[in-house]
C-alpha cells in the first residue's frame, strides 16, 4: 500500500465532510459500550478512513451482545462487507431472537453461505474472523464463541485464553461449522479484564528487526497494563502500538476491545 497524506488539498472540504468516514466510524459505538461497561475500543484502519474490521453491539434486557469481526481485505471494499455482518447480526439477534453465542455464529455462517456461496471469484470474499460475547450485566456472567478469534482474559494478572473454532465464518462451506459456546469463569470479588482483537494487532510489523508483534508480544503488552484502569489501558496500548510500529507501514486493520468486569 502506498503512503497517503492525511491532509486534503485546499478544496474547502475537510475530512469531517467525508461521508464514508462518518458512516464507517459510526459503527464503533464506544459510547454505547462505555455506558454499560468499563470498556475501550481501539480502531485503526490500515489506510484511509475505512477498513475491514467491524464492531457490533446490542443490548436486550440485562444481556449485552458484543461482536468483533475481521473481514478479508482492507479499505472501502472490505468496509462494505462489515456492513453485511452488522446487518445479519441484527437480523439473527434482534429480529429472530437467537441468544446463544455459538448458535448466532452458526446462523451467521449460514446467512453468508446462502448469500455468497454461488458468487465465487469476487474481489472481496465474505469470510471473517468473528468473536462474539454475551455479557449478563445483572449476574456478572459471560459467554463467548469465536470463529478464528479467541478471547483473552486476565484475572489476578494471570492470562487465560479461550480458543476459537478454526473455521472462519463465511468460508469453507463444504465443512460443517459448529461453533461452541464457552462460559468464561469469573472469580467473585476479582476484576477480570477481557480482550477481543483482530489479528492486525499481533501481525503488526515493527520492532528492531521489523517482525510481527506476535501473540507473545500482545501478551507482553497486556501483562504490562493489568494494574491500570481501563481508560489508561487504552492510552497505553496505543502508545505501545506506536512504539512497536515506529516508521513501519501498517499492513492490516487493527481493532481491539477491552473491558473490565
Amino acid at each position, binding site marked *: 500500500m502506498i503512503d497517503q497524506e492525511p491532509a486534503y*488539498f485546499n478544496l474547502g472540504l475537510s475530512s469531517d465532510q467525508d461521508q464514508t468516514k462518518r458512516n464507517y466510524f459510526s459503527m464503533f459505538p464506544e459510547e454505547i459500550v462505555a455506558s454499560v461497561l468499563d470498556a475501550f475500543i481501539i480502531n485503526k484502519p490500515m489506510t484511509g478512513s475505512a477498513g475491514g474490521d467491524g464492531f457490533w453491539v446490542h443490548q436486550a434486557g440485562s444481556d449485552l451482545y458484543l461482536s468483533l469481526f475481521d473481514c478479508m481485505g482492507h479499505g472501502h471494499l472490505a468496509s462494505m462487507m462489515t*456492513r453485511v455482518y452488522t446487518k445479519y447480526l441484527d437480523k439473527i439477534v434482534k429480529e429472530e431472537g437467537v441468544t446463544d453465542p455459538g448458535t448466532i455464529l452458526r446462523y451467521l455462517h449460514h446467512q453468508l453461505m446462502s448469500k455468497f456461496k454461488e458468487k465465487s471469484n469476487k*474481489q472481496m470474499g465474505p469470510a471473517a474472523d468473528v468473536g462474539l460475547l454475551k455479557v449478563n450485566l445483572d449476574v456478572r456472567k459471560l459467554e463467548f464463541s469465536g470463529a478464528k478469534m479467541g478471547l483473552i482474559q486476565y484475572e489476578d494478572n494471570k492470562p487465560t485464553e479461550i480458543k476459537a473454532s478454526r473455521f472462519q465464518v463465511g468460508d469453507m462451506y463444504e465443512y460443517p461449522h459448529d461453533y461452541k459456546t464457552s462460559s468464561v469463569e469469573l472469580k467473585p470479588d476479582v476484576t477480570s479484564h477481557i480482550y477481543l482483537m483482530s489479528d492486525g494487532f499481533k501481525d503488526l510489523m515493527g520492532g528492531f528487526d521489523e517482525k510481527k508483534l506476535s501473540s507473545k508480544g500482545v501478551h507482553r503488552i497486556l501483562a504490562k497494563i493489568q494494574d491500570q484502569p481501563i481508560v489508561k489501558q487504552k492510552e497505553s496500548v496505543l502508545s505501545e502500538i506506536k512504539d512497536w510500529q515506529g516508521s513501519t507501514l501498517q499492513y492490516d486493520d487493527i481493532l481491539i476491545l477491552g473491558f473490565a468486569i
Partner: protein
Amino acid sequence: MKTSKAEFDATCNLFINSVNNYFRHLTEVDSELNVPYLKESEGLVLKDYTGMIGISGNRKGFVYISANRDMYEDLIKIFIGIDTPSDEDILDMAGEISNVVAGNVRANLGANFMISVPLVFQGMPEQLKIPDDVSIYVIPIMWNNHEAYVVIGLQ
C-alpha cells in the same frame, strides 16, 4: 510549482490509462473514452456520488471520479456480490475507485506525487471550493453503458 502544459498532458494520460486499466482488469469490461475537454466555466461537473483525491508534492491539485448510483451498483455486484447496496456501500465504492486509480498514477510518478485519502460525497457540497489557479480537465468515460467523469485539476 506550476505544472507545465506537457506535464499536465502527461499526468492526464496517466489517469486515463489508470482508469482504463481499472475497468479492463478488474471488471473485464473495457471503458470507452469520450472527447476530453478543458473546463473553463465556473462550477464542477458532478454526478450523484464522487470520490475525490487531493494531490500534493511537485504537482498540486485534485482528481475525482464521479458517477451515478447505477454504475457503482454494477461495480459492487461484480466485486463483492451485494445485489442491493446501501448508500454507504455506494459511497465506499466511490472512494475505492478513486483511491485505486490515483494510487496507480502515484506508483508511476513516484514519491513527489502525493495523494490524500479519498474524500467521498454525495451531490455537490456547498463548501466545495476550487482554487482559481487550477486547470480542470474533464474526461467523460462510458463503462457498461454508464457515464462517469474523471476530472483532473492541477495548478
